[in-house]
């Protein structure tokens, strides 16, 4: 029914899709699998008309089609549940569901009809308790996810695309979703389904396409019969060898960080651990398992209960200025949104966290600043090696290195690294690993979050495995392997 061939999509610095093929049959649930950043969302955005592909063709029911805008795609009969919630907070549930295709006559919305229809769709989804007139901004994330689904169902779609619809849902809610999907497929509607949860794929999926680094690595595998190990190895790509630096020979030093009974309602609960000087502690878990929130809470940037102590002294919540002064640093997850000054030079970005160190009475010592930046650019092999360039002209990996470089200045005791290799290509990764290990070797404690299990295992000395905000395992990295960790975080079975 739907055939996509050789889709290419280039973003600044990233070839998100590099010749992807996909074919979907009527009435089937076609699953898309792949690691974070593999290009799944990008692919379905191309299909939904939200992105324009640079190359490639799309055929629908035998005819070549072009979706040059979301409107076109909707007209073709494609409905999409996007990964990021794409609702308008100020509108009601019913209005969001029918946004863009309101029941209207001469521009006047038939509110009765809209509310009734919304109520019907929500009831069909098993959530009659969500009132069509409620304001979406006041709903919980899970309820919002249901509204997103209701919106996709409200179209008379022939193809429904679902990008991680279950991410915000609990297990029992997922059952509802699957019931709907079965109803739809029974009517000949095709469903493209994206999820990181393998057990879901086994339950609902018919066939599986696996993406890796913007390419299709497997097409049309049977969803139920393909062994997990095969899927995981397709996803993680055994052909790429991660070169992890050797672990430190000497045992770690004094405790630099102690976290006890840390909880943040809705994100994580009762987390306790410690990090010692020269030690790398990794946090493994699925997206949404609360790892970023733990880092933020440790950094003092997020409201949480419990105690956090840096070198024995408590960290005051909200006092990031003090936290940084006392030697903590955070390389956040969202590089662009949380770390970079895109318009500024590499130098300005590197020195942002240690400006007082370059100034006397507020006066910047620019020569020394430049020299230090130059030194770090060379040490981290940031390319091109010109510290005066605007950082937005650098590739993602090089930007990431600059974010790390920010915390190599001044005397640091503890670094919190959230997805330090996100968007970083394989070659640069090895360099980053060496840098991170080098930091530890200098006696800095490192708390590392990564969605890539091999990375956590290869780099860390100790690993905490998280699932839905609770630590389900804590132990030496050498005692774990990737499959065991994946089993734990996907199925929730502690080893």
């Amino acid at each position: 029914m739907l055939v996509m061939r050789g889709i290419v999509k280039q973003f600044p610095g990233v070839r998100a899709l590099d010749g992807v093929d996909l074919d979907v049959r009527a009435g089937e649930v076609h699953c898309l699998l792949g690691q974070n950043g593999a290009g799944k969302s990008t692919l379905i955005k191309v299909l939904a008309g939200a992105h324009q592909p640079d190359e490639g063709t799309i055929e629908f029911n035998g005819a070549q089609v072009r979706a040059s805008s979301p409107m076109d795609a909707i007209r073709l009969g494609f409905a999409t549940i996007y990964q990021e919630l794409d609702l308008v907070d100020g509108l009601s549930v019913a209005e969001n569901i029918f946004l863009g295709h309101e029941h209207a006559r001469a521009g006047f919305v038939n509110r009765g009809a809209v509310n009734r229809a919304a109520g019907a769709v929500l009831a069909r989804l098993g959530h009659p308790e969500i009132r069509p007139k409620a304001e979406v901004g006041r709903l919980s994330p899970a309820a919002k996810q249901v509204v997103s689904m209701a919106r996709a169902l409200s179209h008379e779609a022939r193809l429904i695309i679902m990008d991680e619809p279950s991410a915000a849902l609990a297990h029992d809610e997922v059952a509802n979703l699957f019931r709907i999907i079965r109803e739809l497929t029974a009517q000949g509607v095709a469903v493209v389904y994206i999820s990181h949860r393998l057990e879901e794929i086994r339950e609902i999926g018919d066939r599986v396409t696996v993406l890796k680094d913007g390419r299709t690595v497997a097409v049309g595998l049977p969803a139920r019969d393909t062994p997990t190990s095969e899927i995981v190895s397709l996803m993680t790509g055994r052909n790429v060898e991660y070169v992890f630096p050797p672990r430190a020979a000497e045992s770690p030093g004094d405790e630099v960080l102690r976290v006890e009974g840390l909880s943040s309602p809705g994100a994580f609960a009762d987390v306790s651990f410690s990090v010692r000087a020269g030690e790398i502690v990794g946090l493994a878990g699925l997206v949404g398992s609360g790892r970023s929130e733990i880092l933020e809470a440790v950094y003092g940037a997020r409201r949480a209960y419990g105690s956090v102590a840096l070198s024995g002294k408590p960290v005051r919540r909200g006092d990031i200025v003090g936290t940084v002064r006392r030697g903590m640093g955070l390389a956040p997850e969202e590089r662009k949104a949380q770390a970079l000054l895109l318009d500024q030079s590499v130098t300005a970005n590197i020195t942002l966290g240690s400006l007082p160190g370059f100034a006397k009475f507020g006066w910047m010592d620019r020569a020394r600043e430049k020299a230090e930046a130059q030194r770090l650019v060379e040490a981290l092999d940031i390319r091109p090696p010109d510290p005066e360039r605007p950082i937005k002209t650098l590739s993602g990996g090089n930007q990431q290195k600059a974010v790390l470089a920010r915390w190599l200045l001044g005397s640091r005791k503890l670094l919190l690294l959230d997805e330090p290799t996100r968007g970083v290509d394989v070659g640069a990764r090895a360099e980053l690993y060496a840098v991170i290990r080098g930091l530890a070797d200098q006696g800095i404690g490192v708390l590392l979050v990564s969605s890539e299990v091999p990375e956590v295992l290869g780099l860390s000395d100790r690993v905490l495995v998280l699932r839905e905000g609770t630590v389900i395992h804590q132990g030496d990295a050498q005692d774990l392997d990737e499959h065991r960790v994946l089993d734990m975080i996907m199925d929730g079975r502690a080893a």
Partner: protein
Amino acid sequence: MSNPAEAGPHDRFAVRAPGPLAWLGETRHLGLVIALVLLAIVGLVTKPENFATTSNLVSILSLAATIGVITVGATFVIIGGGIDLSVGATMALASVWATTLATQAYGPAVMAICAILVGTGTGLVNGLLIAYGRLVPFIATLAMLVAARGLAQRMSDRKTQIIQVDNSAIVDLSTTRLLGVPLLVYIFALVVVLGWVLLNRTTFGRRTYAVGGNPEAARLAGINVRRHTMLLYALSGLCCGIAAILIMARTTTGSSTHGDLYELDAIAAVIIGGTLLTGGRGTIIGSILGLLIFTLITNLFILNGLNTSDQLIAKGLIIVVAVLLQRRNLKERAP
């Protein structure tokens, strides 16, 4: 991009009961209504013999009418995520264009149509510059403010243009009364009602919230965000055109000095009424209540013979207090 650190906790299906919610939704208006009532009490106490007379109430509404019509348009623009600084100048230009000798020769109907066309056209230019020229709304409408006033001065040769006796039908809007209330108050009421219907009962209105609240979501839902943005400014211009007719009726003239600083008053009324400058939220009723509060303050000052200096100081304080109070209900991003 949203800051995950600020995301609230998420209880699984904590759909808060709608009953109390709906009530909360109205609380903001309730606050404004309480403020109005308080001001009215002040009026009753200080000037019992003058304040609560029909003629005074009608006078308040007549005073509010012109800027009220503009406020309706401004509410749309601001809910849609924009801002329009050119409203006062646009109204002045429309009033001048409609009262040139050439236009007046065609009679009152043509004059009214002229004012509306000029207003809408000016708004359309703003909209084109912003939606397609991709100028920041602040700058595009600031430039229009300056240019439209200049043009109005040129066109009128800086003179006040009186409406001729033949065309007094326009002036009748202000002098003819129906049930003791001048026609222009009915026009004001009509614009408010139509604006309310447009915002709350039509696809255009619902899409305005979407465009202002989450333009990317609006785009993904198949809404033509640019065209909609353009139409919002045209709508604001249309309201300025109608306001031009009202000010012509009230002052019997067209003049390049009309509507000086109306932009600030209109924006302030909209914000006090609970519309967010960031777009996506707000109500017509709130804006009108906000405007009535300002008008009532002015009226009380007039009745009590107090001076403008004190009025300005009070106005500044009221803006701050009102917005600070609002903030308690709403979460907004820090600067």
